Every structure is written in structure tokens, then in C-alpha cells.
């Protein structure tokens, strides 16, 4: 039987409605998951060893990549900003320019992206494999909360390690800029650090700090959520891992913009 013309005309609207419902539904499930994880975080008894394990997994094992990317980011910034400033005869401002770029923006964002790639993806894959091999179900039927055992320690570890990783990234980056600006291009050491102290204040440092705290929550939240809700076997784990990294990265950049407009 032929389809009424009105029905075919309304099909795009139906599709749009289905898409919106899917988004609202997903956002609701994401929100509920975070609420349950936050409740698990503040519900005793508190387990120290799983938390230390997660700090090691997310933070300590990401040290090398943070040191490497931090150093090279600082070096690239030092090089590019030096040549830009030299056109205006303002090379003296290299130190504050590198420091402000790193502390306010690049440190929190790049450190978060690096930790997402290294630890976030592994977190999703680990939880995903636990899901498809029924290890999460096993915890549930033992009357033990998977939220408290698996998700809450990751969230707390994210809150602790992301600011520390960011601070490390900033410091290494500033010394990377120093290496290029002072050791290679001949700027004086006093100018590089002296101007930095004049222009960088506590507000800049707190901006970077709050960003890193938010990114710590976003990355561990998205990655644990995606791992926790894996289905369809190995293919599902692969898909969830990709989605977790992509979604975390996008949210980091979007949230960075919003925080940039809100924070002083």
C-alpha cells in the first residue's frame, strides 16, 4: 500500500525527534551514573588500596608522557613566541608569554588530552572487559557495589592526579621555554624569570587548577561510563574505547572554552 504523502514528509521530523530523545536519554544516563559515582565516593567504608592503585594507574604511569609532551610544548612555545616578539622588539616578555600560555590553557588541556589517550582509554578497555566477562556482574551478586570498587576510586584518582600532572606539565614546559629562549636564543635568565613573576599571578594559577580538576572529573567520568556500559563483546570494547577518547577530548576542549569565559 502506498505511503500517505504527509507521513513521508514528516519522516525527517520523526528522525530529528528520535535523535533528540536519544541525546536526552544518554545525558540522563550519564548524569545518573555520575550521581551514583559521587554517592559511592562519600559512602564509607573507604578503601585506600584501590585508590592508590588508581592513582598509580592514571597518574604515575602517565608521568613519562607528561614530561615529554610538557618539555616539547614549552620548547615550541619558546621558539614561536620568541620570533613573534622579536618583530616588535619585545623578547623580554617571552617568559610571561610562555608561562601564561601554559598555566592558563595549554597545561591543563594538553595534560588532560595526554592522560586521556594513555590512561582513559585503558580505563575504558579494562572496565569493558570486566563487563563482558561478567566480572562486574560477579561483584554485583556478591552484594558489593561496582560503583564503589571500580568507578569511585578512578574519579577520586582523577581529581588528585590531573592537577598534579598539569602542574608538572607547566613546570617542565616553562623550563622547555627557558632552554630555547635562554640557552639557545640568548635571552637573559633574569629577564625570562623576572618578567614571569611580574605578570603571572595567583588568579592565573587557580584558573589552570580549576580547569585541571574539571578535566579530571570529565575524563574519568566519561571513560568509566563507557567501559561500564560495554556490550557486544570485543567489538563493543573497541568501539567504547574509541568513543571514550573522542568524547573526552571534545568535552575537554568545549569545557575549556566555557571555563575560559567564566574564570577570571
Amino acid at each position: 500500500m502506498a505511503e500517505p504523502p504527509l507521513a513521508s514528509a514528516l519522516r525527517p521530523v520523526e528522525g530529528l525527534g528520535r535523535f533528540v530523545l536519544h541525546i536526552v536519554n544518554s545525558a540522563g544516563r550519564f548524569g545518573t551514573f555520575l550521581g551514583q559515582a559521587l554517592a559511592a565516593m562519600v559512602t564509607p567504608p573507604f578503601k585506600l588500596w584501590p585508590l592508590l592503585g588508581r592513582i598509580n594507574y592514571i597518574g604515575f604511569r602517565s608521568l613519562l608522557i607528561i614530561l615529554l609532551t610538557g618539555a616539547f610544548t614549552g620548547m615550541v612555545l619558546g621558539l614561536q613566541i620568541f620570533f613573534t616578539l622579536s618583530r616588535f622588539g619585545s623578547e623580554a616578555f617571552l617568559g610571561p608569554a610562555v608561562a601564561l600560555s601554559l598555566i592558563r590553557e595549554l597545561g591543563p588541556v594538553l595534560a588532560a588530552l595526554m592522560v586521556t589517550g594513555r590512561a582513559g582509554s585503558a580505563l575504558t578497555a579494562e572496565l569493558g572487559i570486566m563487563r563482558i566477562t561478567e566480572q562486574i556482574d560477579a561483584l554485583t551478586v556478591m552484594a558489593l557495589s561496582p560503583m564503589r570498587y571500580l568507578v569511585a576510586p578512578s574519579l577520586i584518582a582523577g581529581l588528585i592526579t590531573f592537577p598534579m600532572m598539569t602542574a608538572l606539565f607547566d613546570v617542565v614546559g616553562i623550563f622547555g621555554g627557558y632552554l630555547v629562549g635562554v640557552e639557545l636564543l640568548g635571552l637573559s635568565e633574569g629577564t625570562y624569570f623576572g618578567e614571569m613573576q611580574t605578570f603571572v599571578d595567583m588568579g592565573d594559577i587557580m584558573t589552570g587548577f580549576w580547569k585541571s580538576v574539571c578535566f579530571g572529573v570529565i575524563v574519568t567520568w566519561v571513560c568509566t561510563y563507557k567501559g561500564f556500559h560495554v556490550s557486544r563483546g570485543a567489538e563493543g570494547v573497541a568501539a567504547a574505547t574509541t568513543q571514550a577518547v573522542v568524547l573526552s577530548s571534545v568535552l575537554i576542549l568545549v569545557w575549556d572554552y566555557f571555563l575560559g569565559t567564566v574564570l577570571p
Partner: protein
Amino acid sequence: MIKVVGLRKSFNGQPVLRGVDLEVPDGSITVIIGRSGGGKSVFLKHLIGLMRPDSGRIEVGGVDFGRLRGRALDEVRKRYGVVFQGGALFDSMSCRENVAFPLREKTRLSSTDIAKQVDTALERVGLAGIGDKYPEEVSGGMRKRVAIARALVTEPEIVFFDEPTTGLDPVLVNTIHRLIQDLHRTSRFTAVMVSHEIPEVFDLADRVGMLHEGRIVEIGPPAAVQGSSDPIVQQFIRGEPGADQ
């Protein structure tokens, strides 16, 4: 006693359980048989509280288990032991740590007492001495036995087995069945098992129920089910392909 009344469950409008009725007497071994895709695992997930029914009741000791939430649900689950199809052992822990895990997390026993109970549990399943190996380092049959040891170490009143012998050779199937029988004889737990193993389950079970197209079509002692006049039951027991194959 576990009593299931009119249990229904659908996924995306597709009914999987169409009104399951079942009674599991205390201290018995009840085995649910049925074809793959017939809803056995979904049914078991309802019994252990991993899924919620669309309608119907699951009573455990007179309590409507299917409607419980939070702590009340966990209180009933504390009486449970579950052996999953693949074992569901924590792969980041050794076999010994896996068996110790429920004791460490759910009791206030000292580490010495936990170690003693774990040794006893591993001995009971014939695995004394392999405790320090990781699940990936032992055979499939051993993994199943570690899973059984973990499920029984807290001495639960009710133990659920989800196809505990899937993927094992016939000798190991009989070994696991004998092990379950021996453990049941000494511990007297109530057991509900989902299995495909025909005819082996008839030697193990006190009662056998056949789940077909979302309903229990036959239930009773093994001899009665084996002698059932229902053509669906006979067809399944004999392993004959049906009209839809």
C-alpha cells in the same frame, strides 16, 4: 524456598519470558534445561537480581525479591553464591585472592582465618596448591572449580550455576557434576542450575524443568521429565532438530 510466579520479560517488544512459574524446594538441586536462546540465562539473571521483571513475582524466603532495591536487595544477595558461565574470576587477582575476595570484603575475619578458609575451599574443589596462579594460567576446568570455590566459600544458602560445564570435555563435565553433587551433599545448599548437558544433568538433579519459548513446559523429577509425553521435551532430550531448524 524460591517461588517464581508469572515472570514476564520482553526486550524491544520481543517477549523472552512469557510467564514462567517455578518452585525450587529448599536443599534441592533444580536444573533448568532448554534450547539455546530459550531464555534460560535471562531467567537466571532475574533470579540473581541482575534483571528486573516486566511483571510477575520472584519470592525468596517469602520476600518479593524482584521488587527489592538497594540494601534490601543486597541483604538477600548475601545469601547467594553464583557460578557464572565463564567463571567471572577477577583476572587481576590470583585464584587464591579470588576465593578470598568475598570473605575479605563481606566478613570481619582475620587474614589467618581467611587463609584457612580459602585453603579448605580450594581443597574441596581439588585445587590445593594452585592458588597462587592467575586465572589465565590455569585450564578451563580449573577456572570453573575456582569459581565454584569462590561461590561456596561464604557458605551461601542458595547457589546458582549458569551453565557451569559449557566448553568442557565430557570427562570434565562429569567431574564438575560430581563435585557439585559432593559439595551439595556436605553443605545442603539450594541449587538452581541452567544447563545443556543432556543426559548428564538427569543424574545430578533432584528436579528438572524445561524452559521452552519463555515458559516452563515440563517440571519434575528427572525420571518423570525423561518419560514426558510432551513432544517438545522428548525432541530436546533426544537432540532431534525441530521443524524450525
